[in-house]
């Protein structure tokens, strides 16, 4: 089974801190994604990566950056955490670009609280 692992289930950080959320997948997937989940808004794409060192902005990239130095690892960085970034963050991966390859596999999520 595909496994997508997020390093933390719960995080509490202070306003202004630099925050790193880590995600690792074990199935050699090409694509990796970071989503943010908020009640009533569903999931919104922050950034995605389709190859090592490649990244593309999603729908809500402001205040975030990402890093993909190795194929299996995709990091989300909050440069200076703010209270409006309190949310559930979900990492996902998919094998490729067509048909069944596009199925996304999700991690358990990281619930981040910024105080």
């Amino acid at each position: 089974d595909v496994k997508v692992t997020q390093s933390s289930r719960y995080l509490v950080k202070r306003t202004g801190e630099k925050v790193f959320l880590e995600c690792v997948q074990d199935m050699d997937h090409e694509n990796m994604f970071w989503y943010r989940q908020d009640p009533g808004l569903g999931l919104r794409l922050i950034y995605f990566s389709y190859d090592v060192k490649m990244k593309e902005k999603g729908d809500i990239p402001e205040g975030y950056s990402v890093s993909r130095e190795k194929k299996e690892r995709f990091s989300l960085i909050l440069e200076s955490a703010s209270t409006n970034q309190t949310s559930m963050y979900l990492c996902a991966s998919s094998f490729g670009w067509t048909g069944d390859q596009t199925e996304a596999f999700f991690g358990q999520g990281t619930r981040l609280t910024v105080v």
Partner: protein
Amino acid sequence: AQSVTQLDSQVPVFEEAPVELRCNYSSSVSVYLFWYVQYPNQGLQLLLKYLSGSTLVESINGFEAEFNKSQTSFHLRKPSVHISDTAEYFCAVSVTAGGTSYGKLTFGQGTILTVHP
């Protein structure tokens, strides 16, 4: 840009009753369509998907969804629900261009299904 609308934020039903969770999308190009389920304190799991071919797709636990291109809908149905179906359900669309989508998903707002005994 594509968008996905789930018409009901919450759907309460009694056990063994039928249920329909509605999903409409807007896109002028070909799409892949998905339903994901999220149980409390867990990540999302794929429930079923439409990629091509038969417009009626089924999951292993009794859910089905029908792709209706003319109405741009992908409603999820189950003829008889169980307590264990209580969860949040998300409809998602991936736009394809020449068959390539990068797997980027646009999600609806989610529908919380609560099954009462």
